[in-house]
């Protein structure tokens, strides 16, 4: 089992739509486990990411041949398959030692989408019904599986997800000829439908079954295809509105396969992924719409500045604002003030006037926020600056170039033909 676990956990590691939050489940009578709504991180890997679930593929055998996937049919890698009882045992033993919050189960497609989906569903069912397991279960819905199986899966899982993988249909069809947006959106819509229906039924009767109470999420790879950030944000916005996604995840493209259809880059676009997450947060918590953050003239997120600061620099007409009289929505728009700081400002300003010395204590990033608020303690020279001047002041300092006097690899100034 050690060998299988190494292979199948390694194979599952690129799927990041894996958080333990959102589910709220009480311990079943005579059973083990519950679900904390905030999520609990049990450990952190060396890449800085949280481990809260046992993230596995049931098998890394796959019928499909998607260009971006390590487990694609045409790759020559060690393959393994878990038995249903092995996954159940691993989950329970890890869980009772408090090493995980629950299970995240995906799979390569083996024999057929329905066959695979049924196996996933059976594992969740066994945990819930036979072992009275109350912990968190996240199942991936296999594109192409029948709606009946997905409907069953939702009864036992806390969260379901289908990965949209590539931000546009033409690009997806180029990189994964067996998939298209139809095969991805169909299960997404049926999950959405089932979640909505279950919520309606539960309002009428407490005994109506819960369907995927932690909602639905999805993931797309950033940097494997030529779509702009504007296109990606437009797509995310529609997923949040139409399919009522709980979250959209962005995963920077890691070049695992060499393939002429994929861009030949050497490093993962981590900065771009970070900016996309910041933009995603703006849409969800700061009430920005996607066409405020970006538009057709600026289709890519700024590398040097976070999206909120970039927006503020493009719209100097909104600033400076007076933190003592502005309303909550206006305060949220100030760069350097987050949701918690904005709430603290609104709550504490009834006790007295908010001044700059309070802001740092309230958790505001004062170095950014100072250019956008009315602050009498600032020197006159720093008040009412133009955006270009603010931009120059906020740019990260250029890294000094170190020329090594004795270096062996000298690049010639003139390249000979």
């Amino acid at each position: 089992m050690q060998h299988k676990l190494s292979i199948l956990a390694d194979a599952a590691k690129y799927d990041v739509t894996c958080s333990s939050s959102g589910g709220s489940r009480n311990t079943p009578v005579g059973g083990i486990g519950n679900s904390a709504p905030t999520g609990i991180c049990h450990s952190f890997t060396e890449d800085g990411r949280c481990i809260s679930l046992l993230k596995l593929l049931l098998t890394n055998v796959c019928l499909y041949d998607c260009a971006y996937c390590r487990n694609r049919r045409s790759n020559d890698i060690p393959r393994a398959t878990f038995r249903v009882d092995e996954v159940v045992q691993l989950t329970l033993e890890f869980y009772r030692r408090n090493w995980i919050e629950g299970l995240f189960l995906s799979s390569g497609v083996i024999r057929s989408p329905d066959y695979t989906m049924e196996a996933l569903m059976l594992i969740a069912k066994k945990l819930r019904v036979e072992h009275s397991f109350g912990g968190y279960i996240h199942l991936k819905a296999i594109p192409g599986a029948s709606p009946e199986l997905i409907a069953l899966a939702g009864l036992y899982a806390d969260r379901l997800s289908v990965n949209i993988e590539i931000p546009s249909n033409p690009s997806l069809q180029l990189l994964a000829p067996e998939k298209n947006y139809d095969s991805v959106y169909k299960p997404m819509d049926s999950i959405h439908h089932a979640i909505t229906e279950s919520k309606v039924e539960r309002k009428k009767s407490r005994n109506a079954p819960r369907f995927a109470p932690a909602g639905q999420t999805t993931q797309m790879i950033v940097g494997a295809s030529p779509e702009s950030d504007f296109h990606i944000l437009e797509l995310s916005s529609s997923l949040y509105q139409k399919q009522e996604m709980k979250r959209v995840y962005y995963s920077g493209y890691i070049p695992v396969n060499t393939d002429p259809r994929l861009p030949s880059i050497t490093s993962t676009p981590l900065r771009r992924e970070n900016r996309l997450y910041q933009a995603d947060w703006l849409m969800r918590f700061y009430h920005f719409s996607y066409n405020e953050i970006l538009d057709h003239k600026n289709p890519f997120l700024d590398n040097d500045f976070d999206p909120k600061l970039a927006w503020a620099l493009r719209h100097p007409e909104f600033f400076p604002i007076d933190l003592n009289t502005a309303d909550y929505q206006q305060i949220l728009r100030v760069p350097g003030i987050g949701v918690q700081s904005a709430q603290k400002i609104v709550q504490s300003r009834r006790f007295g006037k908010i001044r700059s010395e309070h802001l740092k204590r309230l958790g505001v990033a004062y170095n950014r926020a100072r250019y956008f608020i009315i602050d009498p303690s600032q020197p006159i020279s720093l008040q009412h600056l133009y955006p270009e001047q603010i931009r120059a002041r906020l740019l990260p300092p250029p890294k000094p170039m170190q020329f090594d006097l004795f270096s062996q690899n000298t690049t010639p100034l003139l390249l000979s033909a």
Partner: protein
Amino acid sequence: MNATPKLSLYEASPHQVMGNFAQTLLFDGSFEGLLSAVFTSYSFATECKVVKQESHIPTLFEHSQWVESDPAKSQRVWEGIQNKCGIEIANMVHLAFLSPKELIPTQINQYLRLLFAHPEQSKNILNPIVQSIFDTARQVRHEAHRFQGFVRFRQAKDGFLYAIIDPECDIIDILHPHFQRRYPNESWMIVDSQRGKGVRFEKGLLTPFFCDPAQLPQNDLASAQLAAEGEDVWVLLWKNYYNAVNISERKNTKLMLRCLPRKYWKYLPERQG
């Protein structure tokens, strides 16, 4: 009114924060003792410093006085806080007390004096006294939340699940309800290796206990000695899983250390070696 100029309520005077104290009150280190000391300090005109007896180093010009822990007095103070400001503020004060910082008893005393005089100021975080209590309570709560994830059970030879932790704050009491809810049908125990404090849960009954910290295993390797046969198979599976899930192309040690500081590594099997 006093002859001293009246400062606005949302700013504490430098005297209050820096320390121009009438007396130093010593108490036994328990929350009850702290509340008894608060009760006693009320009879003094100016602020008192409140210090735990065990960590007290007397200075030359200081007047120090021992305060006996009195259940009646501490109950009066506790009920007084709840009546003035509600159970949430009272719980927050208790949380702040669990912090190991030396100034905490004094700061709690200052906060409670402010609270009894002006209850509406109890949530005014522009006041540095209020803010320090809020911040400390948040730190304690945050550490307890982290330990909900960092408690690592092993199965002992007698079938008990045991875990040893090394927190900075005294969080055992706020940690065990989570595990009671999660594992109501198991037998488990969690011990704080520095304070020798632990809780034991068996057949639905929770019993706190104390033991000698020197006799407890001081790291994960020593802790593994107490485990049952075959337990290392599962620990090895966990370590393999931990290494397999890592994406080396995205290595970010700074981020990992921010989320999982080295001080918590002692009893984590996957971070040994």
